[in-house]
């Protein structure tokens, strides 16, 4: 099975990379862009399907709940 994890900086946390990319996009002829937020996307190939364990790992390792939110999608 495959698990897909998206980790995004929390709305309340400034994302310096996102701000820099937003500015670059404006310079590239898209002044309308309001904001960009940059996160991480992880594709995980795993034999067993313990979703609770995956959530635990998302919380403890793959994201830092102080600054990030994660979303886990498990595909059969």
């Amino acid at each position, binding site marked *: 099975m495959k698990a897909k994890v998206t980790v995004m900086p929390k709305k309340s946390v400034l994302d*310096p990379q996102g701000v820099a990319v937003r500015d670059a996009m404006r310079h590239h002829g898209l002044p309308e862009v309001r904001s960009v937020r940059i996160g991480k996307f992880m594709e995980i190939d795993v034999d067993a399907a313990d979703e609770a364990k995956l959530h635990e790992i998302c919380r403890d390792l793959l994201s830092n709940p*102080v600054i990030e939110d994660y979303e886990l999608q498990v595909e059969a």
Partner: protein
Amino acid sequence: MKAAVIRFPGSNCDQDCYYVLKNTFAIDTEYVWHKEASVEQFDLIVLPGGFSYGDYLRCGAIARFSPVMRGVAAEAARGKLILGICNGFQILCEARLLPGALIRNRSLHFVCEHVHARLENMETAFTHAEVAIAGGKLLTARTGLLLRMPVAHGEGNYVADEATLRDLHRNNQILLRYADARGAVTSGANPNGSADNIAGIVNRAGNVFGLMPHPERACDPLLGSEDGKLIFQSVIESAMKKTKSSSPITKRT
């Protein structure tokens, strides 16, 4: 007393910390590989700077799960003194031994320069001492004292939610804040965008300290500053005091 300098794969300030403890302060110091499970025999534990595990995922995110960190957490809970510098600070935050987190510098640039850090609380195990420096002078802790030390990091931007920041202020846990050469805490003097110019914080119990500036690179006149000695002198004095007071009492059976 005995000091440990923890080595993770990718630590690169371990030798500087070891040198300062061993040569500048004549402390019995050992390197401890991150695979060791226990650090019980040490009175002071230093987590040095570097790029543990290549900073993969997040700075300190993987190092935090090294076997030695369980030992560090156990000793922290027992009140032992823990000093995390730069990547060591990041690891302590990831390990939740300190609140908050360190994210990418606001400028996105790796900053590598000397900064002034203003001493905000001189009544802690890490910031109270007086130490001799070159020219027969004494450097004495006082609130407002400026310590000139280098920073070298890409992720030193301290963030925490509002409640945490309020607690840090209320409990005087902010020990160092970036300031200009006159001691004014301004946004211009903030090298990385840290909330409230925070350069270093201590945990609520007062025995775990993390800071982004490198005191170990400011302990010799040859390096342009000896201000880092104040932190090492303080923590060594505190560790010695603790060692003495907890020296084994003869058990009667």
